[in-house]
């Protein structure tokens, strides 16, 4: 399983004004948040918020859907930016997936019950 977009990431590339883009420094905006929400019945929904700009959310979503065998969408939120939304509780899988792709575990915050 390979995500092309993740491999071509150049760590030395200019990523713009890091602090300028996030309004408050040191807040939880720097984290990648993985949350869970209950839907009706025993159905749940997982959201991934705060994905760094250098990742292509669209491609990531495609990879998630294939890897976890679930459906999902990309939601554009005015405040939170792009949010990946997946059906079911995929929190652990997402977290593992992202860490395997080299995202430090400390920047990933898994919420929920």
């Amino acid at each position: 399983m390979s995500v092309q977009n993740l491999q071509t990431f150049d760590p030395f590339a200019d990523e713009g004004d890091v602090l300028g883009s996030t309004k408050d420094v040191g807040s939880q905006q720097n984290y990648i948040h993985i949350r869970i929400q209950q839907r009706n019945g025993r159905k749940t929904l997982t959201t991934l918020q705060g994905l760094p700009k250098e990742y292509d959310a669209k491609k990531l979503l495609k990879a998630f859907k294939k890897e976890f065998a679930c459906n999902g969408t990309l939601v554009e939120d005015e405040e939170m930016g792009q949010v990946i939304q997946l059906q079911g509780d995929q929190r652990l899988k997402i977290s593992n997936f992202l860490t395997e792709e080299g995202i430090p575990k400390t920047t990933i915050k898994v919420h929920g019950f």
Partner: protein
Amino acid sequence: MHEQLKQSDGAGDEGEEDPNAMFGDLKKKKKKKREIPLDLDGEEGSGTSTPTTAPAATEDLDFSDLKKKKKSSKKKAAFDLDAFEKELQAENRNEDGDEEEAGGGQFLLNVDESELGENVFAHSEAPSGLDAGNEAWLKSDRDYTYPELLQRFYASLHASNPALLTSTGKRYVIVPPSLAREGNKKTIFTNITDICRRMHRQPEHVIQFLFSEMGTTGSVDGQGRLVIKGRFQQKQLENVLRRYIVEYVTCKTCKSFDTLLTKENRIFFMTCESCGSRRSVNAIKTGFQAQVGKRSKTKTT
């Protein structure tokens, strides 16, 4: 120091009396029950000499099972201990599975315990009831062992100085959240005010955190109970609360729970009452909330 002594005491206990006491307690107890008619004077002394609370609890749990076991085993003519033990183990495994099924919800995340900090919901160990004149060695010919004496020492020490128990050891125990179901879609957190009081936190702050973490909403009813939208299990809420405690209650420096949360210039600061350290804590920020339920409902608001 105090704690260490006690721990080593426990370890010594196990080492001396029963090498696999940690997990064998249950088995041993059951075995003993059946062994009694066989040899009355056997190692009965060692069995009763350690009235720890843990085996009592487990025994309680599957008491009916034990009875059943006894009945079924009576049918067997031969005392085939090996087979019996095997059976017991299998049964134990079964029980474990059952427990997991009952306790672990379908959404329960396999959180690593380290993230949650100390389990504050653990029931405080009841002071082991070692009354003077009730010691095990008094009933038998043998001498007392060192761990037994040590246990006796602590029992009498704590009996005469209850303050020691509260100032050290498991002093901060929060009652587990108690939940009730309202209808099919709501959960009522009945003792939230009590828990907040024990944590010295405003219920509003706790509720804000709960809702943000659990991705839901709710309201406080007339009796101060929290009505949460969605179905939640006690264990789930417990995990969220433990995360709250790690983040907003425990002092990072001395691990004390005796802290105060104050708001200055829109920033929350936590001051430790025990060691005086102060740190700022993250503001609770509700993250992205996906729209669930009817779309038309959210559109109009």
